[in-house]
């Protein structure tokens, strides 16, 4: 298993390299640059200033040179300076990454802690009342776009009930910046991400449970004299979780994608907001770093999925 993980991690390197090339090219294909926006009539020699800034950032050099420069610096741990925020990229990414990870983890917990048990309960009595209510509710929820849901949550929880903050990743006043404060701020955006996925996971769990209940080996288990609840725990549940656990790993990447959109709506200072601002400001060093990290997130998610798959399914483990 150890060598397998190392091999997979090494296998990611060429992939990530290609992704950086693609992002670099797309970024430069978009019109404008970071310094076009500087419009200060107080500065006497605007054109000369812009030219100086462009040269100091190396933007006048050929693209291959710029890319080569970026990557050699990057692998040495020098991620460059933000063009617009005048801080090292690493300093910007630190807290943003932490906030987004918290958001993603909270959303995942909500998805699994609600979606799977609900799906299991539905499967215990398929086409029963509970199943019917949940299925209808899921269908409605599933057809509502993300941002409408987010606005509804903000309205209900933040404005109407006033129990959760709707903006930002940290508060002000006493206790600001504590872990609880962070969790408090991540709650609503996490819920907005989680709600739709929860319906997907409950449906998925329900289907998988029903599917496994019909398997021959479940009948074998009953034929041995095991009680219904033991058959359920030992034979049905374990097998039914295999596709779910795997899907969960693959979804980690997509979850981060969902975070990008919702961070904007909640002004939540995470990787998504950082990236959106960087794209708007043509802040190349920041764009390169954040997109690379997103790619790493997706690839790691896939790796986690494959490892989990092997953990839960001996047929994979032994091949």
């Amino acid at each position: 298993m150890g060598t397998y993980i190392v091999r997979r991690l090494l296998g990611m390197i060429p992939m990530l390299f290609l992704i950086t090339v693609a992002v670099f090219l797309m970024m430069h294909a978009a019109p404008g640059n970071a310094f076009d926006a500087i419009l200060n009539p107080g500065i006497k020699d605007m054109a000369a200033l812009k030219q100086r800034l462009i040269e100091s950032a190396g933007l006048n050099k050929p693209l291959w040179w710029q890319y080569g420069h970026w990557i050699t610096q990057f692998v040495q741990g020098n991620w460059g300076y933000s063009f617009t925020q005048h801080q090292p990229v690493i300093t910007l990414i630190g807290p943003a990454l932490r906030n987004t990870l918290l958001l993603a983890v909270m959303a995942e917990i909500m998805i699994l802690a609600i979606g799977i048990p609900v799906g299991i309960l539905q499967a215990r009595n398929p086409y029963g009342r509970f199943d019917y209510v949940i299925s209808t509710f899921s269908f409605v929820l599933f057809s509502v776009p993300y941002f409408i849901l987010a606005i509804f949550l903000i309205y209900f929880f933040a404005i109407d009930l006033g129990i959760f903050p709707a903006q930002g990743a940290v508060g002000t006043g006493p206790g600001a910046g504590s872990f609880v404060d962070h969790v408090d701020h991540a709650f609503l955006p996490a819920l907005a991400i989680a709600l739709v996925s929860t319906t997907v996971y409950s449906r998925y769990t329900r289907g998988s449970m029903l599917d496994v209940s019909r398997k021959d080996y479940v009948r074998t288990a009953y034929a041995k004299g095991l009680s219904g609840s033991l058959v359920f725990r030992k034979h049905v549940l374990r097998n039914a979780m295999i596709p779910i656990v795997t899907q969960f790993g693959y979804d980690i990447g997509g979850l981060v994608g969902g975070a990008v959109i919702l961070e904007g709506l909640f002004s939540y200072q995470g990787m998504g907001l950082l990236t959106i601002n960087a794209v708007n400001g043509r802040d190349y060093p920041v764009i390169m770093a954040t997109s690379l990290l997103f790619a790493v997130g997706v690839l790691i998610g896939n790796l986690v999925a494959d490892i989990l798959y092997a953990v839960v399914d001996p047929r994979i483990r032994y091949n």
Partner: protein
Amino acid sequence: MVEPLLEIRDLRTYFIGKDVEVRAVDGIDLTVYPRQIVCIVGESGSGKSITSLSIMRLLPQPRGKIVSGQITFGGQDLLKLTEDQMTDVRGNEISMIFQEPMTALNPVLTIGDQITEVLLRHRKLNRRQAISKAVEMLQFVGVPRAAEIVHEYPHQLSGGLRQRVMIAMAMVCEPKLLIADEPTTALDVTIQAQVLELMKKMRRDFHTAIILITHDLGVVADMADHVMVMYGGQIVESVNADDLFARPLHPYTKALMESIPSLIEEKDTLYSIPGTVPDAASFPTGCRFAQRCPLAQPSCFETAPELQQMGPGHLVRCDKVGREGEGVPM
């Protein structure tokens, strides 16, 4: 006079849907004595599996229902037991093995787990004792490397080995009755013979009675003490094995016998009975076999024949064949 081990009286098992009623088993009587091997033969769809699942009370839910009858086993009516009491019977006094050894074992549990599970349920053993008993049983059924195989998973074993594991699992509590539903159908011929041999050994060493379901009369000839031929959810002929092959009476039984591939004539194609089994959701009013029967006469399509005594212990459901020794054309 030996007491019967299992006695089924007028068993009817239906699948009841909104506007259909599938009469999968439609009035079956069956008696099994200790150490006896009873074969149930018949084409696919004749109700063999549902008969055995009725005995185990493991019918496909929610639609499968035993609508009437008695199943007396060791003096108690299984149909009167609570589900809880029934779990004490399953795997302990009556065991079952299924057709598909590839899918009948749980892919994520080790062989050892799956065998010890039965022991831990029915015997007061700790894990260590259960494992050693499992290994012993695997050795007994001829699984090589038994001590290693208990730590392996089903996908690591061949089909033949898996069926041996299934037998070990079914026999580990030494049940009085083993129900085997087409246990060799999915296996190739040499493995098939070995598994059948193993079942005979089980009967010899554990005194287990066996209900063996098959559609292969070759298997019946090899194994059976008593044979029941099923058609359309009913018994059409019931007799001891020797008499069945010496004097088959029901036209369906005869047709089945003609469909045994003959080794001497080197026929490649299997003769099969023309037509198909009737739909259990709408049986005809008359004889259920009439449409395919070479002896059928108009009256056969009108009145359903009863099961009649045609010789000592020889029951036949046909009005057009005479009693033994009465010179009926065969």
